[in-house]
């Protein structure tokens, strides 16, 4: 399936995420299913009470990686549209940090694609989360993105 990335939404935002707007954007009469993933701030982490979180991103690379995820979705699944939005800055308990919506003619593709999107985002999109507790703050343990081992074409011909 070709990738209508121009109709998709990839955003890093500093204001509250509005799921309704995003779902409305991916929704079309030729679809029949939308699956969404809403990730939001839990009130505890490893049994410590969380006060709030602070997210930062390598913004241009993060947006590029979000587009790459969508391109993979179109290659792998028969979907119609995608919206991927991540919030940055300070987030309070219960606030949405990431929202993904995928529309498709049929539900299996929508489920598979939405899940692939969030799983891949968590491994490859350069975003970091600092967790603030009553007795201090720590950068959350995360996942190391796959690192290239060779450098094809890294050196110039001359």
């Amino acid at each position, binding site marked *: 399936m070709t990738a209508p990335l121009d109709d998709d939404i990839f955003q890093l935002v500093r204001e509250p995420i509005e799921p309704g707007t995003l779902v409305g954007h991916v929704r079309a009469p030729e679809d029949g299913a939308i699956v969404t993933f809403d*990730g939001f701030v839990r009130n505890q982490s490893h049994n410590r009470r969380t006060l709030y979180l602070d*997210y*930062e*991103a*390598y913004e*241009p*690379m*993060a947006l*590029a990686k979000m587009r790459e995820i969508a391109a993979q979705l179109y290659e792998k699944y028969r979907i119609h549209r995608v919206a991927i939005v*991540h919030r940055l800055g300070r987030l309070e308990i219960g606030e949405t*940090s*990431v929202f993904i919506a995928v529309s498709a003619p049929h539900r299996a593709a929508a489920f598979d694609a939405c899940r692939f999107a*969030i799983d891949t*985002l*968590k*491994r*490859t*999109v*350069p*975003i*970091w*989360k*600092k967790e603030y507790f009553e007795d201090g703050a720590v*950068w*959350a*343990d*995360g*996942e*190391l*993105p*796959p*690192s*290239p*081992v*060779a*450098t094809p074409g*890294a*050196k*110039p011909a001359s």
Partner: protein
Amino acid sequence: MPSVSQTVRVKVLFFGRLKDAVGQAEESLDISDASTIEQLFALYVQRIPELAKYRSSLVASRNQEFAAWDSALYSGDEVAFLPPVSGG
């Protein structure tokens, strides 16, 4: 003319715990042309020895794409050192 190592300017970015350790988010740095990302990181370890402990948990990017540590750097390149990501 004497053969000298040409220097080029690159932009270096730090994120997450590495940014805290370095004490800044980015800087421009003059390095020998075609230095590798590994060599660039070694310069920072010389300046801030505690950075050495992060090396095994970092990936690097060059011009906003994940890059091998032996990638060579050229004038104007943007390099970033990326701790494990924790978005979502």
